[in-house]
């Protein structure tokens, strides 16, 4: 049975659309606006036009809401919409990446919500219901999760209980599906919606101190820009006159005050925004889904199926590392970075939490196990040293050049004192870099000031890219990048094992491909996502051993070992037209140290 939007969305939509127009009209009226050729009847005419426009708007929005119909079927979500041009869509439920509910203050007052369905295709949100009642939104979210489970895991019978006979809308929908495949449905008292959800366990909640910390650490760098724009447009006549009138000392003091004020303001704005964004952040696990809630004014409420998680990223900086805090990003393929307005979509992220807590959370989401990073070879450190010393050298040179042109207030050799810093930084860069192959995941870590640890399940690998610059080749180094469909990866932030030895990179490339193959096989064997399989485990362990043994010297051995493991009858990773081991064609110049 097709459903329609909440009737309350008509007034809200009218308000939303009409608000701007009304303001414009009022502005025109108060300005004593005179229509040419109408004379004194001008304001009346304007009123009439505004009235007609308002009626038209109400009519249009009513029609829109009335003609909007959606239906959650067994395996598709059907949406018919449009007043003038009709559009009807069918979205396969299994392709839906995540479901988000958002409500701002006014919407909460009305008791309505926006529901967004994300799919992996394209940058935009695939479908948006504006607006349905909040209960309906929650029901959709829960029903989708359930349907998806019923779809993907038809062998899920053991979780089937009989209390799906609850007389509720939700069980109606569930009743449409094959009863044998309907997974557990238990009445959830806590959510208050009266529909059935699987048991909910809380994974993480942001407490007050952490929220305060998040706020304190957020500075909105856009504020100075906006202020500058305001001053330069509004105060362009006042400011210069004022500047001319004041003395030099007063000017300096004034400038300092303004500077401090701007800094303070951007900090306050940033803190307020962060607190409003992450207020009452909760992350819960509900069956096979991850659900999050956050926001003070605008409430977000989203669900991410576990098997749609692409990458987990732990981000920290020296300060956070010192205090044992970290940030966690959970990427799915659904979101377009920067596409969702201010806050980088509504991607789920734990803004700040104690390190152990984050690690526990990762363990819960993706059982990675103990990670032992393998660092790049020592010669990579030499490379960083040269690189940073070069920077220092260039700085010093620039200082000398500047000194020759205009005399600097400090001696030109001052930047040379940065050399020890460069040495330390080179070591730190090397120290924080690493990669690790687990049973089901590849983990990479890069960066000092903004260190990112990325966890990519083998199953999520899209392509493997091995790049070597001229300088890397001179030292026999390579960078292996693992491309996923995750949304954060666009800014060149893919998981990458940077500056590993050339032979190791060759091994890694084949290894990753073989493991992806096995992960896909395991997935096809009926396990959602990164299912645990004893055979598979043994295989992976072997392979890890082989990979660990890889060194510049016995790289070929390791590659052979990889071959042996991947040549299982079930998954012939490398085939006949690839004779004599799959040593990729190795340019001899690549290996010279």
């Amino acid at each position, binding site marked *: 049975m097709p459903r329609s939007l909440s009737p309350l969305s008509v007034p809200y939509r009218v308000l939303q659309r009409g608000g701007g127009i009304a303001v414009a009209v009022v502005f025109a009226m108060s300005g004593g606006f005179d229509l040419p050729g109408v004379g004194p009847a001008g304001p009346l005419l304007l009123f009439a036009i505004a009235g007609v426009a308002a009626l038209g708007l109400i009519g249009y929005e009513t029609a829109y809401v009335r003609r909007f119909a959606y239906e959650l079927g067994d395996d598709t979500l059907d949406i018919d919409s449009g007043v003038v041009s009709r559009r009807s869509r069918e979205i396969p439920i*299994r392709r839906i*990446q995540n479901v988000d509910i958002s409500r701002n203050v006014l919407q909460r007052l009305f008791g309505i919500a926006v529901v967004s369905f994300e799919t*992996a295709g394209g940058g935009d949100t695939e479908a948006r219901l504006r607006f349905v009642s909040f209960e309906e939104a929650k029901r959709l979210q829960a029903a989708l999760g359930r349907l998806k489970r019923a779809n993907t895991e038809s062998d899920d019978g053991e979780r089937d209980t009989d209390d799906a006979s609850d007389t509720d809308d939700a069980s109606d929908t569930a009743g449409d599906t094959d009863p044998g495949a309907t997974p557990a449905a238990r009445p959830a008292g806590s959510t208050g919606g009266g529909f059935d959800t699987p048991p909910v366990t809380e994974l993480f909640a942001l407490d007050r101190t952490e929220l305060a910390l998040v706020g304190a650490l957020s500075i909105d760098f856009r504020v100075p820009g906006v202020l500058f724009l305001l001053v330069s447009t509004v105060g362009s006549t006042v400011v210069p006159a004022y500047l001319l009138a004041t003395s030099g000392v007063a000017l300096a003091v004034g400038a300092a005050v303004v500077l401090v004020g701007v800094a303070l303001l951007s900090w306050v704005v940033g803190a307020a925004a962060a607190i409003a964004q992450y207020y009452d952040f909760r992350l819960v696990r509900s069956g096979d889904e991850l659900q999050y809630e956050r926001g003070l004014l605008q409430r977000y409420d989203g669900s991410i199926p576990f*098997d*749609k998680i692409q990458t987990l990223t732990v981000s920290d900086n020296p300060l956070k590392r010192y205090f044992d805090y970290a940030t966690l990003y959970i990427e799915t*393929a659904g979101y377009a970075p920067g596409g969702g307005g201010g806050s980088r979509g509504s991607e789920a992220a734990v803004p700040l939490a104690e390190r152990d807590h984050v690690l526990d959370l990762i363990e819960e989401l993706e059982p990675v196990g103990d990670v032992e990073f393998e660092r790049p070879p020592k010669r990579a450190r030499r490379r960083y040293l040269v690189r940073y010393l070069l920077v220092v050298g260039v700085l010093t040179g620039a200082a000398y050049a500047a000194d020759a042109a205009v005399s600097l207030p400090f001696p030109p050799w001052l930047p040379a004192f940065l050399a020890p810093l460069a040495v330390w930084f080179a070591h730190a860069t090397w120290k924080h870099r690493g990669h690790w192959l687990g049973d089901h995941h590849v983990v990479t870590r890069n960066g000092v000031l903004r260190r990112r640890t990325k966890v990519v399940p083998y199953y999520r*690998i*899209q*392509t*493997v*890219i*091995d*790049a*070597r*610059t*001229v300088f890397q*080749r001179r030292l026999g180094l390579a960078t292996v990048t693992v*491309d*996923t*469909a*995750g*949304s954060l*990866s*666009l800014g060149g932030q*893919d998981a990458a094992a940077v500056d590993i030895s050339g032979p190791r990179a060759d091994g890694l*490339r*084949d290894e*990753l*491909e073989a493991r*992806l*193959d096995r992960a*896909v096989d395991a*997935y*096809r064997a009926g396990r959602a996502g990164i299912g645990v399989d004893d055979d598979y485990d043994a295989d992976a362990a072997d392979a890890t051993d082989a990979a660990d043994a890889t060194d510049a010297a016995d790289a070929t051995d390791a590659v052979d070992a990889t071959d042996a493991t991947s040549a299982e009858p079930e998954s*012939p*990773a*490398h*085939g*006949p*037209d*690839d004779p004599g081991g*799959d040593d*990729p*064609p190795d*340019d001899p110049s*690549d290996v010279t140290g």
Partner: protein
Amino acid sequence: MGRAMLTAAILAGVAVGIQRFIAPPWVPEWAPVAVFVGFAGLGVVLAVLRYRVWRFEVYDDSLYLERGVLTRVRTVVPFVRIQHVDTSRSPIERLVGLASTVVYTAGSRGADVSVPGLEAGDADDLRERLKRLAIRSESEDAV
């Protein structure tokens, strides 16, 4: 190669323009020619090198590509991850009877994988072959 020539020609044009309109005294008269020859030579060398480095192999379950003169890039695209395959022919390519096959994955570097400089027929063959291989190894859920 063609692109290199074009770049060289454009740069030479810029040089001519500079000489004609700004005419700084330190630019000798033969500068545009020198610019053209220099860049054309460089472009040709680069193109030749690029061609020599360029290679691709269709393995049993992945496509392997190697390219790049200064930065050597090797890409492995598992067939399971192929979303769709295109053949494209730019005007220059059509002029010399070549075509490229572009392989798309769901990854963030989606269109990064292309096999340029194939004969038109070969490109279509490769496309069909990749398509078949991709369908054969199709997974339930590529994303």
